[in-house]
């Protein structure tokens, strides 16, 4: 059974000057039990609107929202039993951490003893039992994030909706926080929908990732699907650091990932496509070498990036022109005008 399912969701806002903004433009999406689905997209792509619509804070202009198989359009947020964490964490500043965590339970008229037990359980889960007596004003950003998560989890919601759950976390701790969030979710088996504009976070966190742009879904799939088989140039260039290289050739764009563009001698000759790379400069990043330069011959001369793994010690220097190559099965082809995926074309060499 689908924990959350949206069908044909459209949300139109009336902006200033009677201008209509389609924040969501026909979104179909479903998430299964104990799955982590990440909504990825640039700012303004409708991710947060989708999350708030599922929570019931926004009502859709068209389309249906189903929770646990029930149509919940028009039902107020309080009977939807979802857990929501927003970027500001929205803690009640006048209540203690305990008061914050217990608030959803109190709203459900949970008996006091049960309430205390559940609050304790949620606090233990997030490692904050020592903070129960404090007020949010005296907590660090990371502690506030934990309190917000504990509050969302306390009444064991069917789905946990997280809007930029790691945005406030210090960059150095983000990977650890992501890992903790994931293992927490696995342990509880709660379905989770996360919103982020950071592709690395989306790829690391999600069982599946849904890419949104201008209120429309571009692609939904596992991180590997999205990375290896992007359906269009938007997804291809959104995901991956550095992003996929795109070389124009006639009415097509030839796409290949930086890590597949390597010195020609490193790639077995059968099926490879070679091209001369004029090297501008080289960055040395976490052991890998990122080679900036431009390629010719396979299409229009285009600036590209090649990423050589630390294990590859081929001497390279700026100003050189070297023969590079990409394995033929690593090439992706897109329509130059619309950006959608097309059938492969033969490239000589």
């Amino acid at each position, binding site marked *: 059974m689908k924990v959350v399912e949206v069908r044909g969701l459209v949300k139109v806002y009336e902006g200033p000057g009677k201008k209509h903004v389609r924040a969501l433009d026909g979104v179909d999406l479903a998430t299964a039990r104990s799955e982590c689905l990440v909504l990825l997209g640039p700012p303004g792509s409708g991710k947060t609107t989708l999350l708030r619509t599922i929570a*019931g*804070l926004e009502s859709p202009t068209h389309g249906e929202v189903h929770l646990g198989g029930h149509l919940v359009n028009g039902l107020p*947020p309080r*009977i939807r039993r979802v857990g*929501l964490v927003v970027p500001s964490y929205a803690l*009640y500043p*006048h209540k203690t951490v305990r008061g914050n965590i217990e608030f959803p339970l*109190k709203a459900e008229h949970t008996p006091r003893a049960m309430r205390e037990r559940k609050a304790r359980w949620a606090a233990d889960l997030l490692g904050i039992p020592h903070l129960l007596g404090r007020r949010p004003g005296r907590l660090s950003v990371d502690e506030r994030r934990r309190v917000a998560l504990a509050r969302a989890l306390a009444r064991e919601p069917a789905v946990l909706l997280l809007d930029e759950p790691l945005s406030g976390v210090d960059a150095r701790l983000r990977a650890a926080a992501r890992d903790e969030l994931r293992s927490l979710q696995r342990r509880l088996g709660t379905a989770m929908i996360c919103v982020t504009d950071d592709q690395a976070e989306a790829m690391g966190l999600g069982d599946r990732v849904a890419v949104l742009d201008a209120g429309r879904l571009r692609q939904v799939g596992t991180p590997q699907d999205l990375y290896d088989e992007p359906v269009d140039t938007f997804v291809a260039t959104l995901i991956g650091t550095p992003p996929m290289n795109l070389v124009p050739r006639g009415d097509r764009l030839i796409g290949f990932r930086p890590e597949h563009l390597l010195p020609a001698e490193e790639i077995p000759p059968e099926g490879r496509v070679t091209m001369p790379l004029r090297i501008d400069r080289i960055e040395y990043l976490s052991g890998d070498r990122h080679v900036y330069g431009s390629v010719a011959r396979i299409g229009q001369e285009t600036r590209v990036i090649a990423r050589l793994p630390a294990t590859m010690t081929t001497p390279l220097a700026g100003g050189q022109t070297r023969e590079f190559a990409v394995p033929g099965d690593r090439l992706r082809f897109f329509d130059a005008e619309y950006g959608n995926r097309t059938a492969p074309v033969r490239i000589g060499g």
Partner: protein
Amino acid sequence: MIRVAADTAPDARRRGGPADREGLLTWVFLLPSVVYLTALVVLPLALAVALALSGVTATAPAYRFTGAGEFASALGEGAFWRALGDTLLFTAVSTVLVVLCGQVLAHVLLARFRGRWLVRPLVLLPWTTPAALSATSWRWLLDSADSPAGWLTRALGVPDGAWHTRPAVAMGAVVAVHVWRLTPLAAVVMAAGLTAIPRDVRDAARVDGAGAARRALEVTLPLALPSIAVAALVTAVLTCADVTVVAVLTHGGPGGATQTLATLAYTRGAEGGALGQGAAIAVLLLPLPLAGATGLFRVVRRRAER
């Protein structure tokens, strides 16, 4: 290279202008408020205390020091204690009603509905109208036989007219006009407090499953409390020191039933010519708003610190 270094080095020979001297600037910026406070708060207050310590009257304006004589005679008077009681009652009832009505009006001010461009200025009208003018209008409304109030009371079978001959009704009328006049100010203050509550927090309460009553009592009210306290304080101070409404509407009557300390001081000092006695009563009124103000600010600050 060397020349560049020399050019960017601090120029030790040049001193900063007057604008660079922070000590001087502090005094320049503070001066206007120091002058203002001295001229318009400290001096009048000192003058009032000096007057209160003298027996000066309009007919004998020469200053003669009489010590605490005027204070003693005021404190020994039944009218003073009665006025004090009336002031407390009048202030407390008005403040509670103003805060309640103001809270409702604050939500009206914030609500989005058609024609709110018309309603918003209308809401503020009672406060922006000069008190003397509005009190006069109210007096007509309540007094004249052809007024809506007169018609209404007759329709309800209440004996005609003469509302200001009955103490409780007269007091009610004074309170009503005060509430009508001060509610818009309190509403604006409290509306500002309500908009300061983060939308995220109100959304969180909805998602957390709280119904309208729980959201109002456990989320909105505690977070709006500082602005409610400020609105209550301002109302209380403006109410207990007000002369105009009582003076125009009832002139303290019937039989001193609506006489507050402020109107008593005014009647004795300005109208009766007993300047010293009026000043003494006014000075004795001072601790009331002062105590209220310090108490409220202490509560608000303690909440903010937590």
